[in-house]
C-alpha cells in the first residue's frame, strides 16, 4: 500500500464527531452481503475492542501525562467500535455470529500465517488456525443438530467445515500456552502488526463466547461455549505472548494505532458494499489522526522518533478471500502437532514433553467432552444432515 503514514495526517481528533443516529445505521444483510463483509465487521469490532482494552490497562499504570490523551482517543474508539459492531443485523443469531467469528479466525489467521515474515511466528499462527478451524466444525454441528440450520449460509462456501485439530486435545496447561516473543529492535513491522491484530481478534472472540454462552438453553450448547471459550482464552495467552514485553507502553500504543490504520485501509481496499466502504475510509482518516497524536506524544514524552518503530508505508493488507488450499495443506501437515513449552512437537512425544497439559486435559475431559458429543459422527452435508436421514425419526432409526 502506498499510503505514507508520516505525511497523511488524517482527521484531527476534534473533528471526529458522531451522533447516536449516525452510530446506529442500517445493518448489513445476513443474506445478501458477502461473507467477507461480515468477516471485516467482526474483525474490526475486535480491533476496536482491543483499542479500549489496551487503553484502559495502560491508563491504570501510567502517570498523568498519558491519562488525558488516552481518554480522549478512547472516547472516539468507543464510538468507532459501536458504529462497526452495530452493522451486524438482528437476524444474525448468536450462534450464526459465532460461525462468523470462527470464519474470521480461519481466513484472517491464514492470511497472516502466509504473509508473516518470521518462520516461528508463522508456525504459531498455523498452530492456532487448525484449532479455530475445528471450532467451526463443532459449532456447525451444533447449528445443524440443535437449531436445524446450515452454517454454510454464513460462511458462503468460502471455508471448509470439517474437523481440524480436535478441540478435545486443544486443552493445555499454561506452561504450554506461552510462546517466545519477537524482539522489537529487529522484528519486521509487519510481525508486530500481525501479533496485535490476531491477539485482538481472539480476545474479542473469547469475550463474545463468555457473554452469549449462558444465553443458550441447551446444556450441550452451554458446555460447548464453555469449552471453546476456554480455548480462546488459551489463544489470547498464546498470541499476546508474541508481543515483546520490553516495548514501552507508548511504543505499544503507537503500534496499536498503526495496526488500526493498516487494517481499516485493508478493509476499504477489499470492501464490496459501498456504504460500508465509506465507513472504512472514514475510519482510516480517524486512525491516522490518532496515530499522529500518539507520534507527537512519543516524541515529547520518550524523546524518540516514531520512524524507529513504524514503516514509511504500510505492508500489503490482510487478504480477504478463501484460503481453502492453504488451510487443507496445513491441516494435512500439522494437525498432529502439539505444544510443548514455547515449541511444537508431534503428538506422540506430547506425554514426554508436555506432561502437565496431558494431566490438565484428562481432568477437564474426565466427565465428558462437549465438543466430541456435539459432533459425534457428524459430517457436514449441504443443507443439513437430515437430507441423509440422520435423525431419531429416520426409517430404521431406534428412537
Amino acid at each position, binding site marked *: 500500500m502506498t499510503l505514507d503514514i508520516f505525511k497523511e495526517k488524517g482527521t484531527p481528533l476534534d473533528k471526529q464527531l458522531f451522533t447516536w443516529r449516525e452510530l446506529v445505521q442500517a445493518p448489513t444483510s*445476513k443474506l445478501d452481503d458477502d461473507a467477507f463483509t461480515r468477516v471485516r465487521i467482526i474483525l474490526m469490532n475486535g480491533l476496536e475492542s482491543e483499542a479500549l482494552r489496551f487503553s484502559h490497562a495502560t491508563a491504570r499504570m501510567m502517570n498523568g501525562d498519558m491519562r488525558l490523551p488516552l481518554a480522549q482517543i478512547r472516547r472516539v474508539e468507543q464510538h468507532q467500535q459501536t458504529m462497526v459492531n452495530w452493522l451486524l443485523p438482528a437476524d444474525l*443469531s448468536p450462534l450464526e455470529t459465532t460461525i462468523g467469528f470462527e470464519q474470521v479466525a480461519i481466513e484472517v489467521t491464514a492470511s497472516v500465517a502466509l504473509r508473516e515474515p518470521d518462520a516461528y511466528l508463522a508456525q504459531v499462527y498455523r498452530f492456532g488456525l487448525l484449532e479455530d478451524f475445528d471450532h467451526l466444525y463443532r459449532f456447525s454441528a451444533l447449528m445443524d443438530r440443535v437449531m436445524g440450520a446450515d452454517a454454510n449460509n454464513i460462511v458462503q462456501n468460502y471455508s471448509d467445515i470439517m474437523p481440524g485439530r480436535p478441540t478435545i486435545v486443544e486443552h493445555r496447561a499454561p506452561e504450554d500456552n506461552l510462546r517466545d516473543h519477537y524482539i522489537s529492535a529487529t522484528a519486521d513491522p509487519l510481525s508486530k502488526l500481525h501479533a496485535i491484530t490476531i491477539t485482538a481478534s481472539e480476545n474479542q472472540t473469547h469475550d463474545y463466547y463468555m457473554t452469549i454462552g449462558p444465553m443458550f438453553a441447551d446444556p450441550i450448547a452451554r458446555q460447548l461455549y464453555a469449552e471453546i471459550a476456554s480455548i480462546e482464552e488459551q489463544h489470547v495467552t498464546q498470541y499476546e505472548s508474541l508481543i515483546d514485553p520490553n516495548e514501552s507502553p507508548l511504543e505499544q500504543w503507537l503500534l496499536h494505532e498503526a495496526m488500526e490504520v493498516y487494517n481499516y485501509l485493508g478493509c476499504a481496499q477489499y470492501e464490496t458494499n459501498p456504504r460500508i466502504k465509506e465507513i472504512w475510509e472514514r475510519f482510516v482518516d480517524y486512525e491516522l489522526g490518532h496515530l499522529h497524536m500518539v507520534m507527537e506524544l512519543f516524541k515529547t514524552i520518550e524523546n524518540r522518533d516514531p520512524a524507529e518503530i513504524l514503516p514509511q508505508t504500510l505492508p500489503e493488507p490482510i487478504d480477504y478471500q478463501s484460503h481453502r488450499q492453504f488451510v487443507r495443506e496445513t491441516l494435512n501437515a500439522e494437525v498432529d502437532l502439539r505444544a510443548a513449552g514455547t515449541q511444537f512437537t508431534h503428538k506422540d512425544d506430547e506425554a514426554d514433553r508436555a506432561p502437565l497439559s496431558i494431566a490438565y486435559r484428562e481432568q477437564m475431559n474426565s466427565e465428558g467432552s462437549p465438543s466430541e458429543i456435539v459432533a459425534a459422527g457428524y459430517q457436514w452435508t449441504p443443507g443439513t444432515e437430515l437430507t441423509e436421514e440422520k435423525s431419531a425419526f429416520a426409517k430404521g432409526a431406534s428412537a
Partner: protein
Amino acid sequence: MKSTAAKQVLTGNRTGMQTSPELAEELIEGAASATPSSEGGPQDIADYRGEYIAEGFPIGSMPMMPASEEGEADEEEVGMSVFLDKLSERLAFERTGTRLYEALLNKCETLGEQTPGPTLEDIEHIGQEELEHFLMLNRAVTEIGGDPTVQSPCADVAGVMSLGIMQVLTDPRSSMAQCLQAMLTAELTDNAGWELLIKLADNLGYDDLKTEFESALANEEEHLLNVRNWLSECVMDSAQV
C-alpha cells in the same frame, strides 16, 4: 471454604409487588415522586423506528434469477420467486420442526411417559412426518429448479421466530406442558403456512405439488389437534379440574 449450599433450597417466586409489600410501597412512592426528563410517550419510540423503516433496507433477497429477454422479471418469474421464498420458509420450518420433536422425544424419554400427555410413539409418529415433509420439500424445490440449501428471506424470518420455541424445548428445566405450549405455537403457524402454500401452488398452477402439500396439511392438522389436546389435558390435570 466448606460448602453451605449442598442442597438447593426452593424459596418460591420472588417476582411481583406482593413479594415484599413494604419495599413495594417505597418503590411506588419513589417512582411517583420523580419527573420524566422528557415529554411525550411511547409514540416517540414508534416515530424513531419509523425513520429506519423509511430507509427501506430489506432483510435480504432471493438469489438472482436469470433475467428474461426484456431484462425485467416477467409475471411468471415473479410468481416463481415468491413461491421459492415460501417453499424455503416451509422447508426451514420442517427442518427445525424435526429437531424440535427430537428435543421433545428426548424430554419424554427422560421424564418418562406421563398421563395425560403424548406417548413416545406419538412423538415419534409426528417427528417422522416432520422429517418426511422436510425431505418432500427438498425434492419439490429441486424439481422446480430452485436450490433447497438457500436461506430465503422468509426462511430467515421463520428462523428468528423459531428461536424462542427452540429455547423452550432444549431447556432441561421446561416441563412437558411448557414444551407442548411451545409446540402449539409451532403447529398453529405450521398449519397456516401449509394452507398458504397450497393456495399459492394452486394459483401458480403447480397441481402435483398442491396435492402433495394437501397430504402434508392433513398430517399437520392431526399434529395440531393432538398437541392442543395433550396440552389441554395436561393443564386441566395439573389444575385438578
